[in-house]
């Protein structure tokens, strides 16, 4: 079937255009290279192909692309998100190709870390490169196609000028694009030259009423409930943008779009879900309960994208709110647990005070390790499964800081969680600092990584056994993941033996519930 032309094609590569079998955590596998299995099997587990209609429009697509699609369609442009396998069909007549990605070249953690540890290119970067090379860009460019790239990893193009030139990228947009994208599209339609690079500063981000509602399903039903974060960590670029809470009506409409298109689970997206409706850092339990009640009314299951550990502790200790939210989320027994990403970043009070002084708020930064431990205990009690990040190689990090981190992770042993150490990538106000990957790994880094690895492997096995992939059609996936974990354990043990390191695995203590 010859497709109707689309003037503005919005797309990305397979590592992003996938619902990861409905399990967002599996998407993290795209940040690594294939380990212990053929790449095709790895890709099938991490990012299976998305169902499309005959025109190549995907059933679900990344939320950022859905927002752009809506923005452009609302302004009357003939724009559509197209699955990467179908893009070539449209390039002959398209005027603009727009790309978005979380990690174009695997320079962000955890991809950068996988790359350093395994010395193999992660599948996300490989998949993006293969996708770009598969496009008939030369001919399309001769016909006047413009290529505009953006998304949270847009800055990476500054490190890849050769590919910028080779693929004929016209403009790179770094930051929230709602305003500038329309300007750029206007320029293309008026035959005016495009700028090469645009950084959207905090004063040019859109107000809530300028943010469009998605028109088609987003991946795993993700909907944005807030933008920005008030905590001001120095390594974070999100915090530079103003805080905006999406009105509940807007959130409900987007959830309904997803449900109408058959996506009955949802991810509430915010840098800190528990700050929804907050004033300053003061939690707003009513707003949170209402938000979850509304989401629950439409959805079979709910997950949170991110939450801060301080807000988790504060929510439960001051308002009993985590237990109350659990009652809403798990009300009718269809959902047993939910996942969330949290940031530990460091176990060192000294570093916490320096680079993330408000991360522990309303508790003092001196209490950071205690905040982390208490929040983990609360999540464990309430069947919340966190995927936690640590940052290694922060500027001015010392061996003592790393030992504090190792001790903290050791204290987290009884709590069901995945802990992923990441190497520091300069972002936020630290963007100009030396890149950690150019620094040598210390023994203490290796020790922290080892503790995290065993913690994560042991708990991953528990999570897979108790909670994950229970439906019959997911059984092959479940066994592939178990095989993978078995392989990781075997490899880790052999490395430990080779390096003469004390084995950690046997020390892991699993709680009984």
């Amino acid at each position: 079937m010859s497709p109707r032309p689309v003037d503005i094609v919005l797309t990305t590569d397979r590592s992003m255009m996938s619902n990861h079998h409905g399990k967002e955590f599996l998407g993290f596998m795209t940040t690594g290279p294939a380990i212990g299995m053929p790449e095709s099997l790895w890709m099938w587990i991490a990012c299976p192909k998305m169902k499309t209609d005959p025109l190549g429009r995907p059933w679900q697509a990344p939320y950022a692309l859905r927002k752009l699609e809506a923005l452009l369609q609302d302004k009357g442009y003939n724009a559509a998100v197209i699955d990467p396998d179908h893009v070539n069909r449209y390039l002959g007549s398209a005027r603009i190709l727009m790309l978005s990605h979380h990690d174009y070249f695997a320079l962000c953690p955890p991809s950068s870390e996988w790359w350093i540890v395994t010395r193999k290119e992660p599948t996300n970067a490989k998949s993006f490169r293969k996708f770009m090379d598969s496009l008939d860009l030369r001919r399309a460019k001769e016909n006047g196609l413009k290529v505009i790239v953006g998304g949270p990893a847009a800055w990476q193009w500054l490190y890849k000028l050769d590919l910028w030139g080779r693929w004929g990228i016209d403009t790179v947009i770094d930051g929230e694009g709602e305003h500038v994208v329309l300007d750029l599209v206007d320029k293309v339609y008026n035959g005016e030259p495009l700028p090469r690079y645009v950084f959207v500063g905090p004063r040019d981000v859109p107000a809530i009423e300028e943010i469009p509602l998605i028109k088609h399903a987003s991946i795993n039903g993700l909907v944005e409930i807030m933008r920005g974060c008030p905590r001001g960590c120095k390594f974070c670029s999100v915090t530079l943008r103003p805080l905006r809470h999406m009105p509940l009506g807007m959130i409900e409409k987007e959830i309904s779009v997803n449900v109408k298109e058959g996506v009955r689970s949802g991810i509430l997206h915010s840098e800190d879900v528990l700050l929804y409706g907050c004033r300053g850092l003061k939690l707003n339990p009513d707003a949170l309960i209402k938000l979850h009640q509304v989401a629950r009314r439409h959805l079979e299951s709910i997950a949170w994208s991110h939450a801060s550990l301080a807000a988790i502790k504060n929510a439960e200790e001051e308002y009993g709110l985590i237990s109350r939210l659990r009652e809403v989320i798990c009300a009718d027994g269809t959902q047993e647990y939910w996942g969330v990403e949290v940031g530990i970043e460091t176990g060192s009070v000294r570093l916490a005070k320096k680079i993330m002084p408000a991360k522990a708020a309303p508790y003092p930064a001196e209490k950071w390790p205690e905040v982390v431990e208490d929040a983990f205990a609360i999540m464990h009690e309430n069947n919340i499964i966190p995927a936690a990040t640590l940052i290694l190689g922060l500027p001015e990090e010392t061996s003592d800081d790393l030992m504090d981190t190792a001790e903290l992770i050791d204290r987290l042993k009884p709590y069901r969680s995945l802990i992923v150490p990441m190497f520091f990538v300069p972002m936020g106000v630290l963007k100009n600092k030396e890149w950690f990957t150019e620094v040598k790994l210390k023994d203490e880094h290796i020790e922290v990584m080892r503790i995290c690895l065993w913690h994560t492997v042991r708990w991953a096995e528990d999570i897979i056994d108790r909670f994950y992939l229970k439906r019959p059609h997911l059984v092959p996936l479940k066994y592939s993941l178990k095989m993978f974990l078995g392989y990781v354990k075997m490899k880790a043990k052999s490395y430990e033996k080779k390096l003469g390191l004390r084995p950690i695995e046997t020390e892991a203590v699993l709680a009984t519930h």
Partner: protein
Amino acid sequence: MLARRFYEVWVLGGLSKGEAEEIKRCLSEAVMRRAERLRIRIYNKNSEDLSYLDELKGILLENVSLSIVVESRDVGKLVDDLESHEGEITFIIGPSFQLPDKARFQGKLRIIEVRG
């Protein structure tokens, strides 16, 4: 956003360390003057050449407060652009480059000459 008011910094003659240092100074000045947006326009013989971005990278990544737009323009368009632009321009000229018709545009330009 692109049609809004920008603090204009135009560069004639590619970009090496000296020009980049001047752009950095302009950026601080723009922040001090409470400008919200900065446009860096590079006039080059080959407007497809991206190598200047390597020199600009540090400046672009360090900035967190202003919107920044980077444009490359063919040097042949310079006079027309100067004619049509209203408002002040900080104009950085690299060594061995000369601004054609300097006297005509002096009123709107703050010229910074970079020595080799």
